[in-house]
């Protein structure tokens, strides 16, 4: 059963889906990895992004990726608002660990039920001419349904990482989790920095959501299927490391693809999480996390 074309296609498929996983996880890498906020509602916002893409695609014929990008500023402001509530209710009084977690569980359920009430429960899909096209590079298949999300995810991830690593605000975000007091002494308001970062994280869900609905149908509770995966990717990559998260996402994607192809798809989650556990056993801070 081992053949070059099967191996190559499994690798390429794994990389393509890994890129999409990175798009879903990058916001969580910021909130959970860098701000220590356990935003369990993150995948629910990705689903909201999918629904926005569906509405404008089905009613006005707009491209889903375009919708994701245009809606990102709105998602940013929603993220800012949610952080303000979280900060005032929990973080300011030091109750963020358990109460904050419960808060985001509540946000997740409110988002899901709101989607059900507004859009109903039927499966939603988008249409775009390129989604049904495939290209072949020799014996390697490249379906645009997966290539486009990979490319968009790569651009978004690169842009976010460059911003975080090259700008003052970006580095302030990286710094706020490490040493809040030091950041204050340098003239940055940690609360405003975290607020901005949270807004940025939620903004990424707009784009991730548009990619999700390009890959497959969406219904309001679909986000739950990504909670475990997204958190695993962030932890595997190393808390606070965006490049680590990307590597982890690609690794998970490739592992899933190889296991599905050669061993049996039912083993894929076990092997993926096995890789996570093994990595943490050897390197507890994750692949690129700080010790």
């Amino acid at each position, binding site marked *: 059963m081992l053949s070059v074309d099967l191996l190559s296609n499994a690798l390429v498929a794994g990389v393509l889906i890994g890129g999409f996983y990175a798009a879903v996880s990058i916001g969580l890498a910021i909130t959970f990895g860098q701000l220590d906020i356990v935003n369990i509602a993150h995948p629910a916002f990705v689903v909201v992004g999918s629904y926005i893409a569906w509405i404008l695609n089905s009613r006005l014929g707009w491209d889903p990726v375009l919708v994701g990008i245009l809606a990102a500023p709105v998602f940013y402001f929603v993220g800012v608002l949610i952080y303000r509530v979280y900060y005032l209710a929990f973080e300011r009084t030091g109750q963020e660990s358990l109460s904050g977690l419960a808060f985001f569980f509540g946000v997740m359920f409110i988002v899901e039920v709101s989607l059900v009430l507004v859009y*109903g*429960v039927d499966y939603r899909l988008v249409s775009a001419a390129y989604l*049904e096209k495939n290209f072949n590079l020799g014996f390697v298949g490249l379906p645009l349904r997966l290539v486009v999300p990979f490319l968009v995810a790569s651009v978004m991830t690169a842009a976010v990482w460059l911003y975080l690593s090259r700008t003052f605000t970006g580095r302030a975000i990286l710094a706020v989790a490490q040493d809040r007091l030091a950041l204050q002494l340098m003239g940055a308001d940690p609360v405003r920095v975290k607020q901005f970062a949270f807004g940025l994280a939620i903004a990424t869900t707009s784009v991730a959501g548009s990619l999700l609905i390009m890959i497959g*149908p969406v219904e309001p*509770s679909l986000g739950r299927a990504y909670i475990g995966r997204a958190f695993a990717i962030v932890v595997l990559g190393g808390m606070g490391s965006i490049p680590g998260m990307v590597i982890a996402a690609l690794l998970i994607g490739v592992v899933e693809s190889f296991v599905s192809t050669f061993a049996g798809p039912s083993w894929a989650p076990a092997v993926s999480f096995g890789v996570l556990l093994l990595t943490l056993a050897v390197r507890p801070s994750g692949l690129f996390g700080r010790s």
Partner: protein
Amino acid sequence: MIKRRSFMRASLASGVIAIALVSGSLVSTAAQAAKPIKIGFSMALTGGLAGAGKAALIAMEIWRDDINKKGGLLGRPVELVYYDDATNPATVPGIYTKLLDVDKVDLVVSSYGTNEIAPAMPIVMRKKLVFPSLFGLAVNDEFNYDRYFQIMPAGPEPKLDWSRGYFQLAKEQTPRPKTVAIIAADAEFALNAAAGARANAKALGFDVVYDKTFPPSTTDYTPIVRAIQAANPDIVYVATYPPQSVGMVKAAHEVGLKVKMFGGCMVGLQFAAIQQNLGPLLDNIVNYHFWVPAPTLDFPGINEFLKKYEEAAKGKGVDPLGQYLPPYAYAYMQVLGDSVEATKGLNQAKLAAYMHSHTFDTVVGKVKFAKNGEWAKTRVLQVQFRNVKPNDLEQFRDPGTQVVLYPPQWKSGKMAYPYSE
């Protein structure tokens, strides 16, 4: 000697008592007559199966309204008491316990789907209740409950009957396919379907060259389809839920799957939104269904029901055509309602005996149950999509786009073979 005054007092008292007794019984009868008959159930109104569950609920509400317009059951209005099980089997036992112990419903019916029906079984069995059920595959195989009645027309041997038609069709083709790949989601319904497929493949002389399952949370199906292609099967039997069905169909197209038959047990390919989106990708897929607008399936009342459904479904974010689950949701209420009227009461033993011994006229045709509560004769249709136009919902209202190939008595056209050259 009785004094006249005493006699008159006694007579007056007797009269008052008599009037009170008669009035009381009249009031009681009237109160009883006005007291609704409560039918309780859980239904997937959120979660993965909510698309179909909510559509089923609309159909059940249409039945309730139709019955109440005719005066209800036993002269009493019908009331539906239901809770959302969120497509989560763990919620079902609690819901049915509440329905029976707190809400004190008179009758129960099931939620939608194998995974949601099975958890309710121990509770209804303990209370010895009649349990009309909505689309569970082989649920009663383990319980052997004699008051279970399944409206899905799987047949007396549901696991086998479900896929028998698919393999029978394959066997009749030229060149005769020899090998089969079976792929199923890791969920009870799909695993049951795959088990039946395995048995049918063996019985009809096919070699199984690929037989695997995958987790329902799988995002990309191209590695799975490539692995199937590498096994070089002649036919592929797929057992999946809606998002997985879409993933498999798209992956088959992207990989360029070259097989003689593809399809089988893909839930979701019966749903309007998915049919419209997949369009030509559906061509030549042979898949199960229970009702399509074919001339051979024009049952009394079905078109009237579908018109009511389409009107009721507007703006509710559910399947606009309602061809899959809603007719059967209406039918299982018809079975229950007709039984209550025929037995003139709510006695569960009498209802069960009636359901076992009679044939029902419903919007999905004549329904007769076997001893195990499944249909006495299978009517799992094998339907092939043909010449599907892109992004066109209307084509699915008319015959021709979905051709019935099996069973022979419901056949409406010939099979296009192979699936792909």
